[in-house]
C-alpha cells in the first residue's frame, strides 16, 4: 500500500481486520515502545457503493439499502432519507406518525448506546461480562421491535408519508414496563461499572479532546458533546416529534474518554424519559398519508439532517424528475469522527493499551463511514 514511510526506530503494527477488537477496518499504529507515534486509519473494507446503488433504485426501493448503513440504529438512518423524499414530494406527515417515528428512533438510540457501552467495557478487559449484560438488556428492545415491525434490527418501518402501520394493542403499556425495567438496570450499571475504580483508572484522562480541536476537526455526536460543545440536531432543526418532547442536550466537562462514555450513558436516560412521555401522550389519528408507488418528485436538491446515535447524518438528495434519484450524497458521522481519531495521537499522548478504549469511546461503525 502506498502508505507514509516508516521512520527508523518506530514499529508499525497493523491493528488489522484480523484482530479481536478492531472492527471491520485496519488501523496502522506507529509505535515507539508503548507510546503511539501516529495513527493511520485505513478505511474502505466494507465499501458497498450505497450511493451508486441508490441511483439505480426507485425512491421506495431505495429505503431498504440505505438502512443497512448502520445496523444498530437503522430507524435513525431511514428517517433521514425519508425526510428528504418527503420534502421533495411535498408530503405532509400526520401527527401520530411523527410521534411513532420518535418512539422508534429513541428505542434504536438506546440499542446503539448500550451496544457501544458493552464494547467499551469489553475493551478494558472486562471480559465479555458487561457486554453480555447489555445484550440481555437490549433483548427487550429488540423484542418490542419484532412485535411492532416484524424485524429486530433493520426495521424498514418508515415510509414516505408516515409509518407502515399503527402500534399494536397494549404496546404503550409494554413500553412503559420496559422503561421502568431499564431504569433499575441503569442504576446498577452506573454503580458497578461506570463508578468502578479500575474502569475509571483506564478511561480517565485518556485522549483528551479540547473543545476548539473538536470543532476544528469536525467531530460530531457524543464525541463533540463530551467536549463541552452542545450541538444536537434534534434541538437545532426539530424533526418528527422532537419539538414537543422535553429532553436536554447532554454535555460533559472532562473531554476525555470517560466523558464520552458518560454522555452516551446519560443520553440513554434522556431517551427513556422521552419514550415514557411518548407512550403516555401520543395523539390519535391516521398514521400514513398515501404516496404513489412510482413517485416522480420535481427536480431539485434537498438536504435533510438527523441525529443518529453516532452523530449527525446528512442525506443530500438530488432529483431530476425521474423515478430514481439523480444523486444521493450521504454525510456520514463516523467518517468525521475517524478523522478526529487520526489526529488524537498528535493532540494527546496515547499508549497502545489505550487504543481500544479510545476507539470505543469514539464509537465508530465502519459500515457507516464506508457506505
Amino acid at each position, binding site marked *: 500500500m502506498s502508505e507514509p514511510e516508516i521512520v527508523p526506530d518506530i514499529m508499525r503494527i497493523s491493528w488489522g481486520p484480523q484482530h479481536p477488537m478492531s472492527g471491520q477496518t485496519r488501523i496502522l499504529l506507529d509505535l515507539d515502545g508503548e507510546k503511539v507515534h501516529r495513527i493511520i486509519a485505513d478505511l474502505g473494507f466494507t465499501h458497498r457503493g450505497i450511493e451508486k446503488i441508490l441511483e439505480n433504485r426507485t425512491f421506495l426501493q431505495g429505503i431498504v439499502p440505505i438502512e443497512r448503513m448502520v445496523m444498530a440504529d437503522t430507524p435513525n438512518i431511514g428517517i433521514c432519507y425519508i425526510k428528504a423524499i418527503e420534502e421533495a414530494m411535498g408530503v405532509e406527515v400526520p401527527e401520530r406518525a411523527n410521534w411513532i417515528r420518535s418512539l422508534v428512533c429513541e428505542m434504536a438510540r438506546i440499542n446503539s448506546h448500550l451496544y457501544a457501552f458493552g464494547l467499551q467495557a469489553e475493551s478494558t478487559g472486562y471480559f465479555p461480562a458487561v457486554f453480555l449484560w447489555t445484550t440481555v438488556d437490549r433483548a427487550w428492545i429488540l423484542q418490542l421491535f419484532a412485535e411492532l415491525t416484524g424485524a429486530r434490527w433493520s426495521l424498514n418501518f418508515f415510509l414516505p408519508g408516515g409509518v407502515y402501520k399503527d402500534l399494536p394493542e397494549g404496546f404503550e403499556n409494554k413500553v412503559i414496563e420496559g422503561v421502568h425495567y431499564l431504569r433499575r438496570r441503569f442504576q446498577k450499571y452506573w454503580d458497578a461499572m461506570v463508578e468502578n475504580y479500575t474502569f475509571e483508572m483506564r478511561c480517565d484522562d485518556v485522549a483528551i479532546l479540547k473543545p476548539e480541536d473538536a470543532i476544528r476537526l469536525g467531530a460530531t455526536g457524543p464525541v463533540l458533546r463530551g467536549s463541552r460543545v452542545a*450541538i444536537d440536531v434534534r434541538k437545532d432543526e426539530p424533526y418528527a416529534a422532537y419539538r414537543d418532547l422535553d429532553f436536554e442536550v447532554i454535555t460533559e466537562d472532562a473531554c476525555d474518554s470517560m466523558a464520552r462514555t458518560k454522555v452516551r450513558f446519560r443520553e440513554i436516560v434522556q431517551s427513556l424519559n422521552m419514550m415514557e412521555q411518548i407512550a403516555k401522550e401520543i395523539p390519535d389519528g391516521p398514521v400514513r398519508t398515501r404516496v404513489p408507488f412510482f413517485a416522480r418528485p420535481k427536480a431539485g436538491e434537498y*438536504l435533510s439532517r438527523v441525529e443518529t446515535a453516532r452523530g*449527525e447524518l446528512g442525506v443530500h438528495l438530488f432529483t431530476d424528475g425521474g423515478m430514481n434519484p439523480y444523486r444521493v450524497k450521504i454525510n*456520514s458521522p463516523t467518517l468525521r469522527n475517524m478523522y478526529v481519531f487520526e489526529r488524537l495521537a498528535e493532540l494527546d499522548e496515547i499508549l497502545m493499551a489505550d487504543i481500544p478504549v479510545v476507539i470505543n469511546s469514539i464509537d465508530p461503525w465502519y459500515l457507516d463511514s464506508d457506505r
Partner: protein
Amino acid sequence: MSRVPESEFVEVMKAAYGDKIKSAEVLRSKRASVLVKRETIIEVAEALRDEFGFTIPVSGGAIDYPKEERMQMMYYLMHPEERFILIYRVDLPREDLRLPTLTQVWEAMSFHEREAHDMFGIEFEGHPNMIPLLLPPDWKGGHPLRKDFKGEGVAE
C-alpha cells in the same frame, strides 16, 4: 423568530464578495448555498472561516452532470452559533478536473477530498495524503460515481 440568519448572511456575502462568487442564495430555512469561481475558492473559503465564522467542517462530495459537461464539488459547512448549513460549491469542467485543496482552510476535509478523488477523479493540488480512501489500493478501473461508469474494476 424574526431574524433569519441565512438571508442576512447571503446579503452580506453578495455585498462584500459579489465579484468573487457566482451566486449566493437561501435554499430553505437553515440551508444556504454559495457558488464560487474556481480561481477565488481559497480566498472566499478563508473569509468564510475567519470573518463569517463557519468553523465546523461537515462533509464534502461531488456530483457529475455529464449533459452539461461539468462536475460540481460541494463542501458542507456549519456555523456553530447560528446552526445553519452552508453548501459551498464550485463548478469544474469535465476535461479539467483540478482544484486547489481546501485542507489548508479546514483540515478535516482531507478524507472527503480523498473520497471525491477516488469516486470522481478530481485532482486536488496540494493535498497532504492523496491515497485511496474507500477503494482498494490496486484499483485499476474507472471512477465509480461518474455517470458513465460501466461497472469495470479489477477483473480477475
